[in-house]
């Protein structure tokens, strides 16, 4: 199973994608309304300060020249300074990216576990009341945007049943674990700080749930559709004919081929989670890269916009490759045929 050749080829492609992305986002950042220097220094800043900043950011030069300046500085590891937080963008990313990744990971977990669970249930009891209840719930979940779900959860758990916290990543009274990966749950696990772990998990619950709801039900719908389709295939009847108990036939021989489409959609959903988590992050005051991304965008903080989009692009590409690897592992037809066997 030489994944290495497959991996190398995909990495090659992703370099091309990221370069293409950098050009696209560079142009977009300039199209966003407003003059970055004036926006950064505030409306009352003196004209000289504004001119000085414009020069420093090479804004006066044509766009392709600016692109080369940017490219050169990136290779030197300097993503420039954010005009919004007034510090190198690298530091912002280092601080805010893990928060969003952690949120997206848990949302992805919800989507995978509950999505598959509901999908299997609604397939197993297809066209019964179970199926229809799940189906209507699905439409409810899909029709309600994540931030409305977030608001409802905040009001519900914030005002009436104070079980889950509704703001920030950690309660004020708790000492944060030493920063290893930036993922609070992982850091507190590694440093054995159980109180912080439980508190971090509690803070993660509501935002992750509201973020995952839409995707979760889409997973369920797709799992159901592919389970029903595979149920009619001969190899399922054959499995029964060989005397394999019904429970195993469903949970193994029907389940594994059916989750392949679900996994590929899960991969895409997970990647898009990070991109548009900003409303949920706003509501839960979650210091994530998505919220930071929108703030810098609205303030036309060019260096930061490009950096954020590139980072999200890298994350998206990595997730894509991972998903394709998992799908290839699950479905030998793709993996083997690709190698021309």
């Amino acid at each position, binding site marked *: 199973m030489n994944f290495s050749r497959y991996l190398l080829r995909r990495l090659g492609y992703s370099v091309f994608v990221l370069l293409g992305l950098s050009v696209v986002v560079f142009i*977009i950042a300039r199209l966003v309304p407003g003059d970055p220097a004036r926006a950064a220094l505030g409306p009352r800043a003196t004209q000289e300060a504004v001119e000085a900043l414009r020069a420093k950011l090479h804004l006066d030069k044509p766009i392709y020249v600016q692109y080369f300046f940017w490219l050169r500085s990136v290779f030197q590891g300097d993503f420039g300074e954010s005009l919004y937080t007034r510090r190198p963008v690298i530091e912002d990313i280092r601080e805010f990216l893990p928060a969003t990744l952690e949120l997206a990971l848990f949302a992805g977990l919800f989507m995978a576990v509950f999505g598959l669970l509901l999908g299997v249930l609604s397939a197993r009891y297809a066209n019964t009341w179970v199926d229809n209840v799940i189906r209507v719930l699905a*439409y409810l979940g899909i029709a309600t945007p994540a931030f409305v779900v977030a*608001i409802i959860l905040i009001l519900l758990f914030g005002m009436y049943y104070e079980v889950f916290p509704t703001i920030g990543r950690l309660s004020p009274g708790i000492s944060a674990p030493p920063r290893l990966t930036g993922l609070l749950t992982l850091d507190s696990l590694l440093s054995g700080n159980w109180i912080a772990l439980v508190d971090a998990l509690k803070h993660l619950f509501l935002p992750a749930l509201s973020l995952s709801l839409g995707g979760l039900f889409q997973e369920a719908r797709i799992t159901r559709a592919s389970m029903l389709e595979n149920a009619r295939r001969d190899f399922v009847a054959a499995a029964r004919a060989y005397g394999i108990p019904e429970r195993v036939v469903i949970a193994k021989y029907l389940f594994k081929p059916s989750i392949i489409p679900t996994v590929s959609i899960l991969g895409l959903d997970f990647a898009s989670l990070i991109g548009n988590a900003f409303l949920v992050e706003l509501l839960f005051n979650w210091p994530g890269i998505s919220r930071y991304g929108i703030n810098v965008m609205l303030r036309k903080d060019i260096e930061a916009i490009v950096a954020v*989009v590139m980072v999200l692009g890298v994350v998206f590409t990595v997730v894509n490759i991972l998903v394709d690897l998992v799908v290839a592992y699950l479905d030998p037809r*793709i993996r083997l045929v690709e190698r021309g066997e």
Partner: protein
Amino acid sequence: MRRTRIGRWWYKFSRNPLSVVGLIIVVGVVFCAVFAPWVAPYPEHAGPYVNYREANQPPSLAHPFGTDIFGRDVLSRVFFAFRSSLLMGVVVLSIVVPVGVTLGLLAGYFKESWVDILIMRITDIFLSVPPLILALAITSVLKPNLTNAMIAVSVMWWPWYTRLVYGMATSLRNEYFVQSAELIGASKFHILFREILPNCVSTILTKMTLDMGWVILIGAALSFVGLGEQPPKPALGTMVADGAKYLPEYWWISVFPGLAIMLIVLGFNLLGDGIGDLFSLEEA
């Protein structure tokens, strides 16, 4: 009893009663959208009308869905909002699905060729640009109105269909029926659209009907940056987004438009599943 072709389809379609419910909902929504001025109790509320004395009234006989913070009747605005939401959904999907599916088929069928690499890499680029940044860029280039919002959403949305169909096309490509079609020298067009596509239709349909809801909601996110239906014209997504601030006191401002979106999504999904049954292989 002559088993006409239509009769057979209707049987396969209505085997699950929910599909019929879906059809009724969709027809009802389209009817309300088209005849909104006659159906809506206060048609002028969809235009430049303000009456703050009437603002934030809970649901009552006079205003079944209550009034919003401008004192406008929510029910009437929902009816008019059906227009822009349905338009947005239908127009975007009618652009996105053909483009996305065709590119997906091409890339999937000609796997490992330059066609595949080119299309899929461009798709990756579009998929990795956060939608809102794309929308904001478009607002600055084009005037903010419904048409440009549709363009923005279409630009954001087609890659999803390409990825979906690409996945299916790559695996279907190895099926015997495709290889046998190649053997007898069928044209590429025939293989793509008469052999591979029919096998993806039910999945595409499921995604299309789900997307009806997503596209309307994206409208809400776009209005956050000022793109899309300009006030005072109503749009469901915007009504939900703006109204969400006033939960739980003035819950009706956000809940009823939300229910309207759910109704549309429910209707299209049930209808979609019903149509999906039509394509199912079962004997009927």
